[in-house]
């Protein structure tokens, strides 16, 4: 046994000498690893979205607003209060709501400030019968916008709309979808519905630097809780 150990030790002492004897192969092996390292680092940084690779956890990131919750609207038509604020605890959204119309080309206007969301004045008011529409930016030219994390919402998450008066309109997320802009589901987003519902819209998918626009929209569907 002792003899074996001695021989092994001798073997270990000898190995560095052999490596030096074949410097080109060793250099290739090490240099190749370095090139791989550079390549993988490049792939990672070029492929890096700047968005969290995994959801940042499901703990509430904004406190839920306090107050009474609105009940389902009566069958008889009546005036619904104006929406003034939006809180989505699951993704840390807390913003005032501005009023949005349409652009000259007929598309939905978006807020000039990427940090606030807006309610489309052509849609029903949140909490009344119908599909209310709220839009916000995913990002600016340099960083996240108010709806940066909209796509992380999951069915069951709550969305609170604060109104000029009266109780909070509280919605429960039922679905989150990404649609190519060429296949935007206009009827499902803007069409009539017989109950109080909400649509939250932002951009998503691939960004096209040639046009300066994203190729898809993220749409969250929610119903009055």
């Amino acid at each position: 046994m002792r003899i074996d150990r001695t021989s092994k030790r001798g073997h270990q002492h000898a190995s560095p000498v052999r490596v030096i004897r074949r410097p080109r192969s060793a250099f290739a092996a090490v240099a190749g690893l370095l090139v791989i390292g550079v390549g993988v680092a490049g792939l990672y940084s070029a492929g890096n979205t700047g968005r969290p690779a995994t959801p940042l956890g499901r703990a509430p990131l904004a406190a839920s607003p306090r107050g009474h919750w609105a009940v389902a609207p009566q069958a008889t038509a009546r005036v619904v209060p104006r929406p003034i604020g939006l809180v989505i605890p699951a993704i840390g959204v807390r913003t005032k709501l501005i009023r949005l119309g349409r652009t000259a080309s007929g598309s939905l206007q978006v807020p000039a400030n990427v940090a606030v969301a807006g309610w489309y004045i052509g849609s029903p008011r949140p909490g009344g019968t119908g599909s209310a529409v709220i839009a916000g930016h995913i990002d600016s030219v340099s960083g996240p916008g108010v709806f940066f994390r909209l796509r992380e919402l999951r069915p069951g998450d709550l969305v609170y709309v604060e109104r000029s008066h009266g109780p909070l309109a509280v919605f429960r997320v039922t679905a989150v979808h990404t649609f190519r802009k060429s296949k935007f589901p206009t009827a499902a987003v803007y069409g009539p519905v017989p109950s109080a519902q909400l649509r939250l819209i932002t951009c998503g998918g691939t960004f096209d630097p040639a046009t300066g626009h994203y190729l898809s929209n993220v749409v969250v569907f929610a119903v009055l809780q």
Partner: protein
Amino acid sequence: MKPASWAVRVVTSVALATLAAFGLTAAQVAVEAPVALASNPVGYIRLAHFSPNTPAVDVYLYSFGNPSAQLVLHHVSYGTVSPFEPVSAGEYTVAMRDAGAAPGSKPVLSTAVSIAAGHAYTVAGVGPAAGIRLEVISDELTTPPGKALVRIIQASMQQDVVTVTVGGHELVTNLKFANATPFIAVAPGTWSVKATGSTESVTATIALAAGTIHTIVVLDEPGKLALDNLLDAAGSNVAPAGGPQAGFGGTAPRPGATLVPWAAATIAGLAISVSGTVMLMRRRRPALHAHRPH
């Protein structure tokens, strides 16, 4: 054999790292793939009492074949309309009992209703108490672009025939008690809606926005007529064109083309490293044998 297994491990881990790098990119591309809007298996039903001389009732909704009620509305009196209730598409039974009657008692009336996904239905008790029936009325959930839809339900027994005008234009002439018109497309606006019977009339100012659907019910009130403006469904008055441009790309990945040189570098590095390692292993073997005799 040790150097060989070491080399295998290095090559394997480098290959995995490369695959992971590509996988990351592939996952980001996948985000863009179009997602079909899952067909919504939900339909809507609401319950109404339009029989003027029938006392309040309890209305039960059963999923077909299930003896326990899915929804019970207590003490529904004449003129009451419930909000729409979302339910799974399928077969249902609506039963009407006298207010306060035992849930297991024989219903005064019942009817079957088939609910299709994406459609809405009103189940109403109509007619005089002596001949009350449960009617299934189909509702509408789309409007022509830029229009409102309006329908009249005639639930007045005192004025058993009425004519209804919207903004001075006749919507329906001589509509009989316990009948309804189909939906009629109307230009949006705030209109004076007038129902005229043989001895009574009633006028209401009603806002009809584009993209909204209304049912106007003509009702008896003691000694006079009344109008109830139901908002059946509402959408945007104008649907904006396409999806909004709600991003400037500050958090977007850089263009896919820049990935190519990095991928090439990774593959080249893999090739150099593997060939170097293989050559090293080849030259080590004789040296190992040389030590064996010791």
